[in-house]
Structure formats: structure tokens, C-alpha cells
């Protein structure tokens, strides 16, 4: 049962190691309820589609895993699609060649494959940090993409179906369901998996292991001096984050029942996963998940509205980089930029004109600067 504790003077509740204040508990409850009623919400409006939100949640879940590396060890992985794809392809191969029908077994296969893959790529790429690490993960991701594309056993560019057995679909609880029911049931499965995954991640971020990772992220040499096995800890974090990607990929395969290399292994998917983490706020736990839903939703809406939806995504990322570096959740939190600005506005509405003026001035200055640079390049001097 929940136990009452005290955190910095505000009453808090402790349950299964999760400590929340009353406010946070409300948010948590609302979040869980929303996750569970999404299938009903999507019947209300045509613009909301269950499959889109589902896909967003799955990629967002991979981003939650990536966030463990990004947030604590300050390592930017640009190849997380490798694990997503490994999970998806492991599922597809098991279903097609081994005839595995149970969703649980398929997901276990995805986890096993992603763990092995993350272990191998981790050993090879964690010798480096910074950009080198980003490049290496990207290259390994592309290597897997190339393999999936080149091997006819893996379906080449056509991909593979996940339709095992006489029922032509993976079985939940040993039963075959009609497509509609299957879609909703797999969605609930995803929600349960996500909640478990978030809980595990929360426990990790409350553990000494997280402190060690933070220390490594801040200063590797010092971390080694105080006796932390840096390489091994980072490797473990890498494998954990890979497993999240693998689970997401396995679920993606089970839900879609058809996978292609383009949508699972391509390096742009790695980029997507990374930007979901940033978009949602990589200093927060649930940010990446929200970022995933928002990014996939925007891309889907963008595709309907304009053929230039890549431009739209690009502009959103630009706004994010310059205006809201802490992401959606990070900006909305207390102390975030949105709350601060709203507070200023409420106290003194005239601050709005000052903001406008600053914006105009900055733009003018930047333009002048770039014109100077251009003149220097073209004529050699100013």
C-alpha cells in the first residue's frame, strides 16, 4: 500500500519505490488513464488515428532507452534504429523461419537479439566519445541496414511479413483475433510494456548506478580515478538502452505485421529517435515518449497538409534548438521557459513589446553579421 513520506516539506507518497507528491500523482494518474483510453478517443475524431499514436509511442519508447545514454553519460547515439530494426527483424525471422506464433516468445526473441547486437556494437563503438561515437553508431546502423537490404533471406528492400502459422498472425494468449480487436489489444500490450519500461527506467534513475553514469558523463577521467569501472558501466547503460530499442522494434513488427528496412533500420529513423528525445525534453523521464507521439503525429499530419512536411519538421527542430532547448516537458516544468515567461507576462504585460523589440534587433544584427561574413568571403576583407 502507498506509504506517506515527506519530501522537502511537501507531503509525498511512496509506492513500489516510486515517490510522488500529490500533484505528481495526479499527473501520473491522468497520464496512465489517457494512455488507456486512446483507442476510445480515436473513434471520436478522424484526425486522430490509433496506428499513428501507437507508432509514436513505440518510437518514443526507443527514445526513452536512448535517453539513458544521452541524459546521463552525455553520449549521443546516432544509430539507435539499429536496435529498433534488430528487434523488428528478429521478430520477423522467428515468425517466418521458425514459425513462432506467440507474441510473448516473439518479443523475447527481439529482446535477446537486441541485447546481443547492443553488446557487440557497444564494445566496438564505446572506445570513443563525442562525435566519433555518434559517427560509429551511425555507421553500424547503416551496416545493418545494408545487410537487411542485401540479403534476400531478410526480404531485401521488400521486407518481411510477420504472419506465422495457420492464423496468419501472431497469437495473443494463444488466440487469433479479428484485425480490429488485434490492433486494440496490441495497443494495450504496448501501454503495459511502456509502463513497465518507464517504471524500470525510473528505478534506474533513482539508483547509485545513475549517479555513477552522471559522474562519467561529467568527467570521465575523474570518474575512473574514484574507482568507477567506466567502460563497463557505460557498456551496461548502452545495452539497456539497446534493449528498449529492441522491445520497441519487436512490438512494432508485431503490430504492423510487416516490416521494411526503410522504416526500421534507415539512419533517418535513428535521427528521428534522437530528435524525439530532444523534442520531448531529454532531461526528463517521459519527455522522449511524448516527443515520439508529437513528432510522428506531426509528420503524419504534415503529410496530409503539404508535400513539404520535411521542411515543417526541420523548422520545428530549429525552433526547438534555438528557443526551447529543454524540450516540451522540460519547458513546461516549473522553472521551464514557458512558466517563467508566462509569469513575467502576468506581472507586466508590457514586457511583450520588449520581447518583440529584442527579436527584431537580434534578427537585424544576425543579418548584418552574415552580410559581413559574405563580403569577407567574396572580397577577402571588410
Amino acid at each position, binding site marked *: 500500500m502507498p506509504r506517506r513520506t515527506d519530501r522537502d516539506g511537501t507531503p509525498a507518497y511512496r509506492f513500489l519505490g516510486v515517490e510522488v507528491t500529490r500533484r505528481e500523482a495526479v499527473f501520473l494518474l491522468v497520464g496512465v488513464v489517457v494512455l488507456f483510453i486512446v483507442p476510445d478517443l480515436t473513434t471520436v475524431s478522424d484526425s486522430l488515428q490509433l496506428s499513428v499514436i501507437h507508432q509514436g509511442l513505440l518510437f518514443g519508447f526507443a527514445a526513452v532507452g536512448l535517453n539513458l545514454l544521452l541524459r546521463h553519460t552525455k553520449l549521443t547515439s546516432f544509430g539507435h534504429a539499429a536496435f529498433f530494426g534488430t528487434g523488428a527483424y528478429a521478430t520477423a525471422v522467428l515468425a517466418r523461419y521458425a514459425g513462432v506464433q506467440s507474441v510473448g516468445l516473439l518479443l523475447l526473441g527481439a529482446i535477446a537479439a537486441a541485447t546481443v547486437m547492443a553488446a557487440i556494437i557497444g564494445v566496438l563503438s564505446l572506445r570513443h566519445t563525442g562525435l566519433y561515437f555518434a559517427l560509429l553508431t551511425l*555507421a553500424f546502423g547503416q551496416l545493418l541496414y545494408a545487410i537487411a537490404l542485401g540479403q534476400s533471406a531478410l526480404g531485401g528492400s521488400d521486407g518481411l511479413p510477420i504472419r506465422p502459422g495457420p492464423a496468419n498472425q501472431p497469437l495473443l494468449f494463444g488466440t487469433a483475433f479479428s484485425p480490429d480487436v488485434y490492433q486494440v489489444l496490441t495497443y494495450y500490450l504496448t501501454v503495459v510494456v511502456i509502463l513497465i519500461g518507464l517504471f524500470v527506467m525510473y528505478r534506474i534513475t533513482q539508483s547509485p548506478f545513475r549517479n555513477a553514469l552522471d559522474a562519467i558523463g561529467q568527467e570521465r577521467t575523474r570518474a575512473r580515478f574514484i574507482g568507477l569501472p567506466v567502460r563497463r558501466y557505460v557498456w551496461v547503460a548502452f545495452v539497456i538502452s539497446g534493449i528498449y530499442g529492441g522491445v520497441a522494434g519487436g512490438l512494432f513488427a508485431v503490430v504492423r505485421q510487416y516490416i521494411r528496412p526503410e522504416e526500421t533500420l534507415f539512419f533517418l529513423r535513428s535521427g528521428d529517435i534522437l530528435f524525439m528525445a530532444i523534442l520531448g525534453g531529454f532531461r526528463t523521464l517521459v519527455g522522449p515518449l511524448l516527443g515520439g507521439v508529437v513528432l510522428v503525429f506531426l509528420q503524419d499530419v504534415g503529410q496530409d497538409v503539404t508535400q513539404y512536411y520535411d521542411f515543417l519538421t526541420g523548422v520545428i527542430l530549429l525552433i526547438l534548438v534555438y528557443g526551447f532547448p529543454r524540450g516540451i516537458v522540460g519547458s513546461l516544468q516549473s522553472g521551464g521557459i514557458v512558466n517563467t515567461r508566462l509569469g513575467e507576462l502576468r506581472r507586466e504585460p508590457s514586457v511583450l513589446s520588449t520581447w518583440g523589440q529584442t527579436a527584431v534587433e537580434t534578427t537585424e544584427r544576425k543579418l548584418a*553579421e552574415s552580410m559581413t561574413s559574405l563580403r569577407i*568571403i567574396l572580397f577577402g576583407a571588410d
Partner: protein
Amino acid sequence: MAVTPTAALVQTLNGIQFGFILFMIASGLTVILGILDVLNLAHGELFSIGAYTAIGVFGFIIGVVGPPGGGIVGTAVFLFAVIAAVLITAAILLPVGTVLEAVFLRQIYDRDQVYQLVLTFALLLILLDVKKFIWGDSSLRTDAVYSAINTIPTSELVGLNYPTYNVFVILVGMASVVGLFWFFERTKTGRIIRATAIDREMATAIGVSTDRVFTLVFALGAFLAGFAGAMAVPPTAATLEMGTNPLVLSFVVIVIGGLGSLRGAFVGALLVGVIRSWMITLYPPGEIAAPFAIMALILLVKPEGLFGTWGETA
């Protein structure tokens, strides 16, 4: 599968030709990486913008000069016209690079590296759709240059059937490699850039404006990417997604050669080009995977790449 010596030679030449194109892209990327410390994910888009622009410039120049006339003089005039068109294309990319660096990149040098990746990725997406807006969805091609240059006999003289255009690319590639090394070794600007790469603070102390060097380096990278795009487009077509593959291969080249090493980029580019080209005859499915396999191998044997850090040794 039996491979005749002639076929092996042709594949090697193809590889070298591709290697030179790759070097022009990777050299810009590696210099930007070595000095700005930014991995420019939008570099492939600059390459493809170069290709699209080149089609227009080629069309214009050929309209002015006309098809190659008879005799050596006519041929020479045409070749110079093509080289001029390539240089004009590359020059068009200079202001593009300048604006990208001065407006977007300059704001975020002191931020976390992940934001730089997000920013250049955002630029990649934006440039992708800018291309779609300007040149449309379908691929564009220019056959005039390719077929005209191929009428000049070169390899036929030694009894080999090999397109003259590829020989042309190899020659221009060699010239650009020499030019690039000369620029960094011998010119004052090149020395200033290298000095900034070796020690940014010291360079500032002796009066180098790092802002300008950064802009110059990025513009130079854009110039090289545009040059590569213009050289690469005649035999094929300009497509929207043509930037992706060279970009990723350039990463491989950079890792093989050593981060920020120009010499490493040269060796890496030729290595990747030739091996990739051999794979096409020996084992086609391995074509895409081979460069990454080499990269993994190099990393196991020599994690810092074939050549160390660029700057002091160029």
C-alpha cells in the same frame, strides 16, 4: 566467377573515379569537423544542390559555347567550358555555405554537441524540401556533357573501352587534390586555417579572427561539395535523395582516415571507392556493406584511424 584483367582494370578505374568524388565530399566534411568541431549532416544536401545547380549551369554554358567543334581547339574549348561550369556551380555554393554558418551554426558552438546534430539534421530536412520546391519531385539529367566528352578518344587509344568522362573526372580529381593540399600547405589562408585547427586560443592570440575562419571553412566545404556534385551528375541524374549515400560513405571515409585528417580522407576515399567497385563484380549484395566492414576492421586494428589528427601534419 572468372574476372578478366580488363574487367578488373575497368572496375578499379571506376572505383578510383568514385573515390575522387567521395574525397571532394569527405574533405569538406573532415575539415569542417576538424576545425568547427561540428558534424555537418547537411553536407550531402550541399552535394546534391551542387548537382541540381550544375544541370542548369551546364545547359547555359553549352548553349553559349555550343557542342564541341572539330579538332583539338574545339575540344579544348569545350573541356574548359565544362570545367568553368563546374567552378561556377561550386562558387554558387559559397554564399549558401556562408549563410548557413553565419545564420544558423554560429549560435550554437558553445552548446551541447547533440544540439549541433539536431541543427544540421534540421537543415538537412529543410534543404531537402527546398530542393523539392525549386527543382520538383522528378529526377533531372543532362546527357549533353557526358556524351560530348565521351566522343573524345582516350582509353580507346590503348585498346580499352572506357568512358572518357570517367578519365576526365579522375584527372580533375587529381588536380583538385593537388590544389587542396597546395592550399593548406602553401597559402597564408591555408596556414591560418591549420593554425586554428591546432590551437584555437593561440590562433586568436596572434590575431586570427576565428569567426571568419569558421565561416571560410564552412564555405570551403560547401564549395567542395558543390564541385563534387557538378562532377558527379553528368553520367547519372540528380535526384532528391542522392545526398544520403555519399554523406554516410563520407562518414566511413573520415573514420577510416582519422577524424579531421585530409590525407586520411584521401586514402580512405580511394580505398572505399575501389573496394566498393570491386564488390559490384565479385559479390553484389556486399556492395553497400563492404565500406562499413572495412571501417569496423580499421577500428579494431587502429581505433584512431589510419592517419592521426589533422593540422600539424596536414
